[in-house]
């Protein structure tokens, strides 16, 4: 089998046994791999109503057919499971080098089942699988866990683990790999923690076979050329990383500030990508086979590590009213060490600050002299540590994410979340397509299920009026479908600034020997989208949850360049349901599922 390794490794954590299975090629081609194939297996094997922490829930770690091949930025893997945060199907994506190593070990997917009686680590060296006691690393932060396990592992092995956040079942915890890369969202780390699994160490020795190596050389050269010539992937991302967005999003007046109370942060310059590059950047970093190298490696005082990304800078910065870059860098660092999702962690602190502003959290609730005042950068690191360890009342509630925390304190409306997952760094009141995308995302509040910022702000592939309503449903659908394919193929979404559907088809065909067209690729994405939707409906996620926080629907932006706007979601949603082939109520029609072969 070209591209694919052809094997699934099924691991039973309850009795520390495993078996390998042949990959079903027809199913793989239909659902591609990664997010799509992982979701298909979830639908077959895990009842949608299962509690996320029930041993019956499974964690599927899935590479795509292009993972570990020479295709540009083809080093991604997905963690697919039922989310404890949203109750939806979750699939969180990560880069680095771990995913490609799993492929080199000979596996497309790992299926983790059951629950280990005691903390355990799994070592995979090609077909040698070993279960080892994890008592000595349980409770340890990510960098420490990684260096201890590196000593026990074969040379150059790659390490994936959870931090204290996942161990303590924080619903906003991540799965970490290569120290600072995160499958961040939807609390996937907690599901791994609930299975008493601390780490998976992997070392592989075989490369996937390629259907047409000559052709692949040609199309890789062509795609690399496109990535280099494109302003975003050839200049913007390599020079400034994602952080360069701070100023542009702020200049447009859609940079949510103080928990989305306003959308223009007058101190944005202090947390900008330009400021980061001038004062804190040590070097750039890249993932497997990636020519873009958008990763940053920064230093602030005693702290030195990967990141921070744009989303993180915003979440700990403007969302919390913080303009001190050092505090942001340190909070990012500790989020990675605790194994927490930086977006959800920052937005949860922002919600706590609003609860404090509104008197729902009082000084009597706060210990250790910490602050929840807007702009309290000096307290961020301690809040992150408390969240990861569920320390104290507030730390324990923060570990549950903003929605459950705000509900506990009697004001759920301050949670800036969709389907209980915290929203990212773009105010949809001034970017209307992105608002529709947030509301309909299959894993709740998320920008990478469809990055409408690309056409609505950056003008790629063409400039759309960000305030317009017309045509946005169509754009959202195409972006969601194409993204579902990219996530399933094992590529980084950032390649899509420069590569189009046809480009992806060419790369895929050269590796797999298929004859996919651009239409086939979008149809595969559509199929995956509908499969996820179907799973969510069966899990009890009602279409009434295709909405946004009331603040974004009803309260006009109070000032700045996007002043006076609300989201106007209700004007876009019916059209979206219609072009998806769903009923007026948002349920996929039988004929739609049949046509797509879901």
């Amino acid at each position: 089998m070209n591209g694919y390794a052809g094997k699934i490794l099924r691991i039973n954590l309850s009795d520390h046994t495993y078996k390998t299975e042949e990959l079903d090629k027809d199913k793989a081609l239909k659902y591609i791999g990664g997010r799509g194939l992982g979701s298909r297996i979830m639908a077959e094997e895990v009842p949608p109503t299962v509690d996320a922490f029930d041993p019956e829930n499974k964690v599927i770690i899935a590479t795509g057919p292009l993972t570990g091949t020479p295709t540009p930025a083809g080093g991604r893997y997905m963690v697919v499971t039922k989310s404890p945060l949203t109750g939806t199907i979750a699939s969180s994506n990560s880069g680095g080098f771990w995913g490609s190593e799993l492929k080199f070990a000979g596996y497309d997917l790992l299926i983790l089942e059951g629950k280990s009686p005691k903390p355990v680590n799994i070592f995979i060296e090609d077909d040698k699988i070993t279960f080892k006691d994890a008592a000595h690393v349980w409770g340890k932060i990510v960098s420490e866990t990684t260096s201890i396990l590196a000593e026990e592992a074969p040379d150059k092995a790659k390490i994936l683990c959870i931090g204290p956040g996942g161990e303590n079942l924080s619903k906003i915890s991540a799965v970490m790999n290569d120290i600072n890369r995160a499958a961040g969202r939807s609390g996937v780390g907690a599901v791994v923690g609930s299975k008493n699994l601390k780490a998976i160490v992997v070392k592989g020795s075989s490369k996937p076979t390629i259907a047409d190596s000559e052709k692949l050389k040609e199309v890789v050269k062509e795609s690399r050329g496109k990535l280099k010539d494109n302003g975003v992937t050839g200049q913007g991302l390599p020079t400034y990383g994602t952080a360069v967005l701070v100023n542009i999003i702020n200049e447009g007046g859609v940079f949510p500030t103080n928990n989305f109370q306003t959308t223009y942060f007058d101190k944005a310059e202090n947390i900008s990508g330009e400021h980061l590059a001038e004062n804190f950047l040590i070097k750039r970093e890249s993932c497997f086979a990636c020519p873009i190298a958008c990763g940053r490696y920064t230093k602030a005082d005693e702290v030195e590590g990967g990141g921070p990304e744009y989303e993180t800078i915003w979440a700990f910065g403007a969302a919390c009213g913080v303009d001190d870059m050092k505090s942001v860098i340190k909070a990012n660092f500790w989020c990675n060490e605790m194994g927490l999702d930086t977006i959800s962690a920052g937005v949860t602190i922002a919600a706590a600050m609003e609860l404090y502003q509104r008197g729902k959290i009082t000084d009597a609730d706060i210990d250790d002299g910490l602050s929840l005042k807007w702009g309290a950068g000096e307290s961020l690191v301690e809040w992150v540590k408390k969240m990861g360890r569920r320390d104290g009342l507030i730390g324990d509630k923060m570990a549950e994410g903003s929605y459950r925390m705000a509900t506990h304190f009697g004001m759920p409306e301050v949670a800036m979340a969709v389907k209980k997952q915290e929203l990212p760094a773009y105010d949809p009141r001034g970017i209307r397509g992105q608002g529709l995308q947030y509301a309909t995302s299959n894993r709740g509040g998320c920008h990478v299920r469809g990055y409408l910022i690309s056409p609505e702000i950056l003008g790629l592939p063409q400039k759309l009026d960000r305030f317009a309503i017309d045509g946005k449903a169509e754009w959202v659908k195409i972006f969601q479908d194409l993204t579902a394919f990219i996530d399933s193929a094992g590529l980084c979404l950032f390649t899509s600034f420069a590569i189009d559907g046809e480009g992806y088809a060419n790369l895929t065909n050269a590796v797999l020997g298929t004859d996919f067209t651009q239409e086939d690729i979008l149809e595969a994405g559509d199929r995956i989208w509908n499969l996820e939707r179907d799973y969510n409906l069966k899990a009890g996620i009602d279409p009434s949850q295709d909405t946004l926080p009331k603040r974004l629907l009803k309260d006009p932006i109070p000032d700045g360049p996007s002043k006076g706007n609300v989201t106007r979601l209700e004007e876009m949603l019916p059209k979206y349901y219609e072009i998806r082939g769903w009923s007026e109520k948002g349920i996929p029609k039988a004929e739609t599922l049949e046509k797509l072969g879901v």
Partner: protein
Amino acid sequence: MKIKVRLFATLRENRGKELELSLQDKATPEDVIQELEIAKSDVAILLVNGRDGDFSQELRESDVVSIFPPVGGG
């Protein structure tokens, strides 16, 4: 008339972050980039008062023009 120009990322090199320009009436963003010796091809995003701008639109007293080279995504 006086307008404010904000520059970002690589466009700041040798120019600064924020400038005030005195321009003739009916001047356009095209005049602004000419004055600042910025090539049109280096401008990826042009905003006037935070809204999508046009190279040929007439500027008004105290407008804010923000100019970005190709930037990243997040």
